[in-house]
């Protein structure tokens, strides 16, 4: 089910919230929330529900076992079991196809027959998000950072919690543990106002901005031979903005929905296109993933505590895996490596004092580097990415002026918001009626445009 759908807005959300706030007993409330979240997930394909339930059960048991003993070997054994199970799920459902096609291609190149059977595996939606949620749970228990969940029901409600289930933010159990133990019994008007604010802003970012950019961007990336430097840069700029408004819109909606449930989620975007360098960008873009990779991968690898060479290697490995997390395609891997290299270059430049003083120059250079990376991220293949990059650098000539002034207007407007406006978390939100009317108008405009709305881009990951 999509947040930006009539069935979610007019049926699922009102019924779920009514049940959540009308019921008094916390166990019944958790059961209600879990069932509602399963309906939300199963709406897409109920056949993958058992997979999520299995993952939840395994991690709950592993968490309980780790917490129940002081024996380091036993604790480590249960942690390895939990991580292995989650990584095996990801490996099979997400990466088997890439593995099989790569092996078979390599076999073919060396004159051998296809060695690995190709299976038509459907990627369970949101699997990357809920397995990362789950892994952080067992790792944090192992590290002694959180206590195990009170019951399987509590833990199931956390994993399946519909606001973050499909496309994040990656919420850790430590973020939600205290809130689950002290559930609010009444939705206060301030909490409801915050929910309205975040949800409506997120919905309008998605429906009124990202989806308006989607069509011309998709048309451009579908072209076999992109033509013209101007159109290529405009299309890649459009995609950069579409991706930001789409994903940050989803995150805002998730934060708003959490407020409707009396919960608080962490911030996932902090004006990433206003970043002054690539490290700054990763502190602002998909923050919950960046911090996850930092805490569970980069730091355990040694972080930046060791030699410069080792730090560079750790950054590259972390970004390589971060790229792979995004999708089973070598273009994502190269995109991750590209960012790893950028981070290393930035670290070296910072250490040697090779940084520019002009904030505008820093921001512009950073954004251009990010844009070039998005070409790899969006293209279906290396061939497609190469053609677009070649076109961006004048290989196909300057090209004509774009034939859609409306699109240029949307891009300019979206760019102005992304580059200069405060983000949802920075705006000082006041209980003024003009705000209420404005948000109502945005909501109405978004609802009217829902029929042309598309799924969120990050659903595919």
């Amino acid at each position, binding site marked *: 089910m999509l947040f930006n759908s009539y069935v979610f807005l007019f049926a699922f959300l009102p019924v779920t919230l009514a049940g959540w706030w009308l019921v008094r007993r916390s166990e019944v409330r958790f059961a209600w929330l879990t069932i509602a979240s399963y309906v939300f997930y199963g709406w897409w394909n109920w056949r993958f529900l058992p997979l999520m339930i299995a993952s939840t059960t395994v991690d709950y048991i592993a968490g309980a076992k780790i917490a129940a003993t002081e024996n380091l070997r036993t604790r480590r054994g249960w942690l390895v079991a939990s991580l292995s199970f989650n990584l095996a799920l990801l490996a099979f459902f997400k990466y088997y196809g890439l593995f099989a096609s790569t092996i078979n291609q390599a076999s073919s190149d060396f004159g051998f027959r296809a060695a690995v059977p190709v299976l038509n595996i459907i990627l369970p939606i949101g699997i990357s998000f809920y397995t990362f949620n789950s892994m952080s749970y067992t790792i944090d228990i192992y590290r002694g950072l959180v206590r195990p969940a009170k019951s399987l029901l509590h833990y199931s409600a956390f994993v399946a919690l519909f606001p973050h289930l499909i496309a994040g933010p990656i919420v850790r159990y430590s973020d939600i543990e205290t809130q689950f133990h002290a559930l609010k019994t009444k939705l206060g008007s*301030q909490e409801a106002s*915050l929910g309205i604010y975040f949800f409506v802003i997120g919905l309008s970012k998605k429906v009124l901005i990202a989806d308006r950019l989607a069509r011309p961007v998709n048309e451009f990336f579908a072209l076999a031979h992109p033509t013209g430097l101007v159109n290529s840069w405009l299309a890649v700029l459009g995609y950069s903005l579409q991706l930001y408004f789409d994903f940050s819109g989803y995150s805002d909606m998730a934060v708003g929905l959490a407020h409707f449930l009396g919960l608080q989620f962490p911030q996932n975007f902090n004006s990433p296109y206003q970043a002054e360098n690539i490290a700054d960008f990763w502190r602002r873009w998909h923050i919950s993933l960046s911090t996850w990779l930092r805490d569970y991968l980069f730091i355990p690898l040694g972080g930046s505590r060791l030699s410069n060479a080792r730090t560079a290697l750790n950054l590259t490995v972390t970004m390589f895996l971060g790229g792979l997390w995004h999708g089973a395609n070598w273009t994502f891997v190269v995109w991750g490596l590209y960012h790893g290299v950028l981070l290393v270059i930035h670290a070296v430049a910072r250490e040697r004092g090779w940084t520019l003083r002009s904030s505008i120059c820093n921001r512009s250079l950073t954004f251009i580097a990010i844009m070039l990376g998005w070409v790899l991220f969006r293209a279906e293949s290396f061939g497609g990415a190469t053609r677009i990059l070649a076109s961006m650098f004048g290989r196909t000539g300057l090209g004509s002026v774009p034939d859609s002034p409306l699109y240029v207007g949307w891009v300019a407007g979206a760019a102005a918001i992304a580059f200069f406006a405060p983000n949802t978390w920075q705006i000082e*939100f006041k209980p*003024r009626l003009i705000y209420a009317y404005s948000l109502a108008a945005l909501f*109405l405009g978004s609802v009217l445009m829902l*029929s042309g709305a598309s799924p969120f881009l990050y659903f595919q990951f």
Partner: protein
Amino acid sequence: MKLASPVASEWKPFVRVFLGSVFCALTLVGALNYVVNPDGTYRLRIVPQLLWGARAQKLSLLSSAHPAPQALILGSSRVMNLAPADLQRATGLVAFNAGVDVGRPEDFYVLLRYAVERLHLRPRLIVIGVDIEAFHNHEPPHYYLEQPTELTPFLWTQPNPHWRWGKFTKLFTYDETRTSLLALYRIASGHRDLIARTDSDGLTHWDGWDRQIASGNLELGPSIRDTISRFAPRYDDYTGVSAQRLEYLRATLDIAHQIGSQAIIFVTPTHPLVEAGLQPHGYASRKAEVLAALQNISEQTKTPFYDFSSPQEFGGEVSHFIDGVHHDGTFYELMEARMFPARARAIQ
């Protein structure tokens, strides 16, 4: 997050005003669209209809057709401008175009049953133009089928809850609101003509396109891009050929056989650029599956089958497309030349 006021009581009016405004605005928009009802989706008929539901119009015209049609054309909007007069010239049979927008096998089936059982027609020739998308396995029958209600009893399953929801949510769409406002404007400014004109033999004239062609202002590029953008998500969800829709087509051919009618199936053409644009969305696989299924049905039911999915199959020039999937009458002349030269005498 900065909150300007931590005082809970100050936020109550905010929530009330927001919810009240949203409720009032949605009610207003929904009521406007329900009352204006620009394409006849709802029962209330106060304002003259701006867009005719093709099914209601075709049933009305078919029931009053004189002389009774001896040939029926079934298909989607892509065959709605196939001129019955041209078919009559090719076959010698009085023809009627019963093509309807979003026409799929269930539409062919219910329309033919209605013609045979309610109107007691016995067409000698049934020409069915099918689209590759007509066999979508995840798109339910369109609620257009409920306009008019006479057709729905012939359906094998009644997807009413889905239709009701679709009709309800349609009240809150930008397209419906824009059409409602356009309908009110046209009434206020004295325009009573319908957007698409249909002759008594079922032939639809696409006046907007005709005007653009006549003035040389038809721009194919944006239309093709628009078609790709609209069809791409449909193809993403189109994972295989619908078994039920194949059965509907087979049942349509069975009825034709029972009444001694000769059926002919052809696949409607798609612009090569649209085909190319839809390749990443599984177009080639779906097309191959549909063509194989149709070939199979053709052999089993001894129904002639023509693959006109690409213009080169019948010698057509892409310049005759008027968007990514619709085209002018020239294509039909070429297709009819392929379908009927030897067959016309046999049918007679």
